[in-house]
């Protein structure tokens, strides 16, 4: 530790620390623009100049290393004169347009100019003007306001992993821009808006819609990916105007993914369902809650009487809250049916009985940064979990090795040490190789349940390198991504990964796809003994009959299920489909519902999510529900009452919560990724015909984000294409850009062909969860492509 004195106060700074670190420890204020605790030091704004004893000139506090015995004054005449002088320089070219600037009221330059600026300017020469740039649909620019602090540039390089902005030119001609007018496409780009200390980069969707002092700030939790990012939701006149990160070092740090930040536009969408509706004689009619709920209760009772309790099924989105999921499963279970599930995109449920607990991350989020080796299986991590990818990126910077087994080779914007890009059908075989290699290296026996299947497979050097990386570098971890969980051989993949983790002594985690994936398991939104799982309920299983009445919570089955074609067929054949949804059904979808009950999205209800690391986070509604929409827990409670079921007399969400989390309840004790004694059958080593790779695009994952207009205009939301390797295109006689007919089952769609030579042979990458591809079948499996 280095002892220094700042303004007469003693402070110990850790080795390598700076004067700024010392001042922050003491709580002494030093003005700055370019300094940021999470970014590298640039020292180019010069606002933090301080006086250091024996130094002939003022020194920037952010980049001056603390030296034993150093005496610093932050408010001496020299320091203040330097800071004021620097402020005058910064204001020379800064336009005086605060009244029309969106940053006004939350602008560091504005704030500091009150303290350090002069009331009039001595500068009479022409000011410089910088042309605005189009950085895409999310960031609006006013580059004349830029003070060239380069925070946005450093953010791209260091945190987002992709340098999209840079400083071109020099001196007075310096300006921030992208290479030849490209847009900024990082999935973390919105953070540049927060980082910009002036109004040069502001939010495009929010622009000119409110002044910052008109907004009330309310706490909330993100309903999207499993991270559970903490949010500040800003509202005006009962409308969500903007979402900003609420700093939480253990979860999202001070960042937010664009999905979490800009999806609020979907909350104010025209497509919001604001009144209950019943379909009578093929026509949708608005009605009151009483009518709608009685219709539902009568319908459910009638179906139960006619077909038995097992004909009732409940399907829910894992983006729903604990309270909603708890009451939904309680409702169907009290009615005598065990058919409840939230895993609509999963297709392989073979290991359900062997599961020892709730799948989770297997570690704390903060531990990801400490990893020295990681194996990610089946995930384009930066699109599925942007901020978990960010944490891994920091780990890689600290020397961690990242290994990847995935069917697509998208740039993860970080160094990947070993990667195996294999067809979906070959993923289990690849894992079997790694398992065998790990067992050889550690000279241990492979567990009996998988031994026979694994021994039939010969090991490649690639697999040995992955195994060695996990064994030689500690701590190590293995993560199963979304794509692995949607995989038709998920059980095999899961158990193989588990054994690799055991042998290599790595931690083992399942990345939670949605905000409440962990919670949905814990609260019982999974079929117990005798209940049907999502695939069985939606008619994808040969052995179990589908249901006759469905309650769908927060779901758009056409986008949220593994096989939309089959799911829609099954729902269309059902007697009663009740949809609890915040949105009117998608115009393009087949009309399968009989009743629509408008429910409140996360901003309009109180609720609880359990993040992928097992963190329980409750939140309150921040605005009143829109129109006649009501929190889903209330809807389910009233429905329970109407059905005369016991135990539905809740007054407050706290009462529901108290039932879910009894005082002695320890969530962490129920988290366990292990499968007990799951035996792997023969592992396929070849695949015949063309295979689909049907990942869920980042901005199609849940109903809210699908309606976020600005996000839908980004590159990540581009219309799906049929991506194929060059050899396959040649074989089909198709050029990239040609329209091709893509078929699965009895559904077909026309898509442009596109070329990606990094795809495995005989694979066609066609995004799922999209209106243009919902006529197709399973996310993975056989697919045919025909030349038109």
């Amino acid at each position: 530790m280095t002892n220094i004195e700042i303004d007469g106060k003693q402070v110990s700074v850790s080795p390598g620390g700076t004067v700024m670190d010392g001042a922050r420890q003491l709580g002494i204020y030093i003005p700055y623009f370019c300094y940021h605790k999470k970014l590298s030091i640039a020292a180019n704004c010069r606002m933090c100049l301080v006086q250091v004893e024996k130094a002939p000139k003022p020194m920037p506090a952010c980049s001056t290393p603390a030296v034993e015995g150093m005496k610093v004054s932050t408010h001496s005449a020299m320091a203040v004169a330097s800071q004021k002088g620097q402020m005058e320089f910064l204001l020379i070219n800064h336009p005086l347009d605060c009244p029309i600037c969106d940053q006004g009221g939350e602008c560091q330059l504005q704030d500091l100019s009150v303290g350090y600026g002069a009331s009039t300017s001595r500068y009479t020469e022409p000011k410089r003007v910088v042309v605005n740039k189009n950085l895409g649909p999310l960031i609006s620019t006013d580059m004349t306001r830029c003070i060239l602090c380069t925070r946005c540039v450093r953010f791209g390089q260091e945190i987002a992993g992709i340098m999209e902005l840079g400083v071109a030119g020099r001196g007075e001609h310096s300006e921030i821009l992208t290479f030849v007018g490209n847009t900024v496409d990082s999935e973390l780009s919105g953070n540049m808006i927060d980082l910009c200390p002036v109004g040069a980069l502001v939010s495009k969707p929010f622009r000119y819609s409110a002044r910052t002092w008109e907004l009330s700030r309310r706490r909330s939790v993100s309903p999207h990916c499993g991270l559970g990012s903490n949010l500040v939701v800003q509202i005006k006149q009962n409308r969500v105007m903007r979402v900003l990160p609420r700093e939480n070092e253990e979860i999202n740090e001070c960042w937010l993914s664009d999905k979490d930040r800009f999806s609020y536009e979907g909350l104010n969408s025209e497509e919001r369902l604001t009144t209950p509706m019943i379909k009578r004689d093929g026509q949708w009619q608005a009605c009151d809650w009483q009518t709608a709920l009685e219709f539902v209760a009568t319908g459910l009772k009638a179906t139960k009487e006619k077909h038995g309790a097992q004909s009732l099924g409940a399907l829910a989105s894992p983006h729903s809250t604990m309270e909603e999921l708890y009451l939904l499963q309680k409702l169907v279970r009290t009615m005598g049916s065990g058919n409840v599930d939230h895993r609509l995109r999963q297709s392989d449920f073979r290991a359900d009985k062997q599961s020892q607990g709730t799948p989770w991350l297997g570690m704390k989020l903060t531990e990801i940064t400490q990893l020295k080796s990681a194996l990610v299986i089946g995930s384009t991590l930066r699109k599925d979990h942007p901020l978990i990818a960010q944490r891994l990126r920091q780990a890689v910077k600290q020397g961690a090795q990242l290994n990847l087994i995935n069917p697509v080779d998208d740039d993860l914007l970080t160094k990947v040490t070993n990667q195996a890009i294999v067809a979906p059908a070959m993923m289990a075989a690849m894992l079997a190789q790694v398992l065998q290699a790990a067992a050889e290296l550690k000279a241990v026996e492979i567990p009996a349940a998988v031994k026979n299947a694994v021994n039939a497979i010969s090991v490649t050097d690639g697999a040995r390198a992955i195994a060695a990386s996990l064994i030689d570098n500690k701590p190590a971890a293995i993560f199963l991504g979304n794509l692995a969980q949607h995989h038709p051989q998920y059980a095999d993949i899961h158990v193989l990964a588990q054994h690799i983790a055991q042998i290599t002594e790595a931690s083992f985690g399942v990345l939670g796809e949605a905000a409440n994936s962990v919670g949905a398991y814990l609260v019982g939104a999974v079929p117990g003994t005798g209940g049907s799982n999502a695939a069985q309920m939606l008619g994808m299983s040969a052995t179990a009959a589908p249901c006759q009445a469905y309650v769908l919570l927060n779901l758009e089955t056409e986008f949220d299920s593994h096989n939309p074609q089959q799911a829609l067929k099954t729902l269309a054949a059902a007697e009663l489909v009740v949809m609890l949804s915040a949105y009117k059904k998608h115009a393009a979808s087949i009309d399968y519902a009989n009743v629509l009950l408008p429910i409140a999205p996360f901003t309009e209800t109180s609720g609880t999510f359990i993040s992928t690391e097992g963190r329980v986070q409750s939140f309150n509604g921040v605005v009143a529900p829109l129109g006649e929409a009501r929190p889903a827990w209330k809807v389910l409670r009233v429905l329970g009452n109407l059905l005369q079921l016991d135990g539905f007399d809740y007054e407050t969400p706290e009462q529901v919560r108290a039932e879910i989390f009894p005082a002695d309840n320890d969530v962490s004790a129920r988290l366990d990724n292990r499968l007990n004694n799951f035996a792997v059958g023969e592992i396929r080593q070849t695949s015949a015909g063309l295979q689909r790779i049907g990942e869920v695009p980042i901005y199609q994952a849940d109903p809210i984000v699908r309606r976020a207009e600005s996000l839908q205009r980004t590159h990540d939301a581009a219309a799906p294409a049929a991506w194929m390797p060059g050899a396959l295109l040649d074989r089909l006689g198709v050029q990239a850009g040609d329209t091709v007919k893509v078929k699965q089952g009895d559904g077909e769609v026309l898509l442009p062909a596109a070329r990606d030579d990094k795809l495995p042979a005989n694979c066609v990458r066609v995004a799922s969860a999209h209106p243009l591809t919902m006529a197709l079948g399973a996310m993975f499996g056989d697919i045919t492509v025909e030349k038109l």
Partner: protein
Amino acid sequence: MLSAETIKKIDHEVAKYPAEQKQSAVMSALAFAQDEKGWLANETMDFIAHYLGMPAIAVYEVATFYNMYNLQPVGKYKLTVCTNLPCALSGGNDAAARLKQKLGIGFNQTTADGKFTLKEGECMGACGDAPVLLVNNKRMCSFMSDAKIDQLLEELSK
């Protein structure tokens, strides 16, 4: 994109740095590319970015920082006149005026026959020789009086 010969020269520069710091060769790579192509088109910079494994914008930062890199096509001879203070005090502006008059163009313009481009340069570190000018970044001409300018133009016009 670039000729095998240019690539060889770039590889020679790349070999001077550790493998993970290939981007240290960006300035020489841009110079060689400019020698071959005459100027640095966006595609050329993009190619170098890929070749050196660095972001395109980082190449652009370097190319825009130094004024010896041509981001627009130039004539056969690029004449860069220093107009910084020491040169200006010793006739730098007169030299520039003479060139403008003889060539019939202003700064950042190219003659109609595509032969000459006139540029305003920054200090070339030869203030004692003022006024100075550079021909195609490589040939330094000192004490550029009107007579010497006429002589130079005549020589280059041949």
